[in-house]
């Protein structure tokens, strides 16, 4: 299966810059409960470069959301260091915006006002806010629904609003925490294609957490395979496939099979106590 990766030629020539945008060094996070301690993230060391599309892949409970929270600054490591743009991460900030699995929107605001919120927080003047919001509503195809309220939207539309709201503050990295996991299959497929387009257009860096192997194969430049208990990165798989990728591309299907084998190997190792 490795031969597959080698024979594919990448259409994306992205020379890696010297300094990584994001760098994790020996990052560990434990959770203490009454009964026992869980190591959600153990000794994770990884670099992410500007413009990369990274998928963090693993079963539920492997610590991938914790990892994302640590990068977002919503949580803090017990050991190790998260550095972003050369400085240690101390808390959340609009340069690292999260798109959550559940639609974390404000029901009292309409679509437009939800997208606008990050800009208001930043103190962007009104006229400029309008321009930016228009641009990102167009990008996620929600301009027609700008006056709608959250409870009037479908699940897929809510996630588009979240995406537009995150993009509107022009973060240097977009952190996506299983954003499509709760959607129906058709909507998920559509959004997977759209996020590729958006990524190509705005050239953002994306870290995308998922438990869906196919999703990782479609989206990622690199797949970080995580295994649980303790949560650690087992493999760092480059994906040199061309874009845009579709669900039924043979190369995507083959790659998904390869990654799935990795996951299974990880699980058996873990169960055998070698993990």
């Amino acid at each position, binding site marked *: 299966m490795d031969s597959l990766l080698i024979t594919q030629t990448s259409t994306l020539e992205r020379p890696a810059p010297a300094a990584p945008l994001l760098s994790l060094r020996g990052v560990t996070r434990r959770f203490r409960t009454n009964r026992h301690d869980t190591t959600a993230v153990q000794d994770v060391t990884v670099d992410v470069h500007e413009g990369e599309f990274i998928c963090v892949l693993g079963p539920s409970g492997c610590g991938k959301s914790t990892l994302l929270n640590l990068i*977002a*600054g*919503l949580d803090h490591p017990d050991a190790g260091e998260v550095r972003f743009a050369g400085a240690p991460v101390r*808390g*959340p*900030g*609009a340069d*690292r*915006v*999260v798109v*959550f699995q*559940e639609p*974390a*929107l*404000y*029901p*009292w*605001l309409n679509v437009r006002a939800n997208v606008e*919120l*990050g800009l*208001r*927080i*930043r103190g962007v003047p009104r006229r400029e806010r309008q321009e930016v919001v228009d641009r990102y509503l167009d990008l996620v195809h929600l301009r027609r629904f700008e006056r709608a*309220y*959250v*409870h009037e939207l479908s699940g897929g539309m809510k996630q588009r609003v979240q995406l537009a*709201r*995150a993009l509107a*503050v022009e973060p240097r990295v977009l*952190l996506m925490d299983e954003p499509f996991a709760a959607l129906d299959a058709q909507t998920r497929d559509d959004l997977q294609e759209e996020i590729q387009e958006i990524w190509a257009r705005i050239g953002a860096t994306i870290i995308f957490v998922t438990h869906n192997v196919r999703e990782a194969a479609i989206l990622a430049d690199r797949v970080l395979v995580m295994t649980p208990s303790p949560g650690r990165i087992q493999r760092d798989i480059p994906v040199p496939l061309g874009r845009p990728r579709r669900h039924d591309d043979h190369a995507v299907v083959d790659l998904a099979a390869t990654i799935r084998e990795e996951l299974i190997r990880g699980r058996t190792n873990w169960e055998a106590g070698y993990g």
Partner: protein
Amino acid sequence: MARGVRVVRLLLFYAALAGLWQLLYRAEFWPPYLLPAPGSVLEALQRTIDNGLLLQAVEATLRRQATGFALAFLLGTGIGLVTGTVRWADETLGTLVLGLQSLPSITWLPLAVLWFGLNEQAIIFVTLMGSIFAIATSAHDGVRSVPPLQRRAAQVLGASRWQLIRYVILPGMLPSMAQGLRLGWAFSWRSLMAGEILYVSHGLGHLLQVGRDLNDMPQVLAIMAVILAVGLTFDRLVFGPFEGWIRARWGLAEGR
């Protein structure tokens, strides 16, 4: 259809009630000074309207109610914001709020009279005490009801602590607040009536008391009806629709 039937049934019920009253009056079941005719109650109402006493009383009462309630709204919301946001404040001030909530607010009247004297401030204080704890509790619950996810979403967009309160906590607490305000208004109204009956002049409660002093049962009943009507009007025309609108807008329920 069903709605029409319900309205007709309701009208029939009240017509029957009025008929029964009239019947009891005609039968002289009780002497007229205990049970006057429905018509004489209407006459008493007309009389208080004509001599201007009613309007004056409603105005004085509503001014007290509005002032006391507005103060309770400001202070109660402030208290609820603090106890809802700061844990140690909840563990200290929060217990006081919960404790004082079970104190009937008219029991503040003697204290208020000693503090302020027999005047407007005392009665406004009692009105304020009627609703402040209900409002503080609903504000506190409202702050707590804001989902952690909504807080985090604002934090990752770069919100400071104050911006979090302004953009997320304050609007997020409104459904709970709307309920608390409605309740608080009713509590304040009760305290105010009790206070006015006890000593204050120029209010609806005072007019009620005057009716008693003059042994004027029609006036007593007429003023009681007015007190009920004013209370219901605000509940049904102001607070009910406000709460319904908030709940609908916030996606919590269909509009009323």
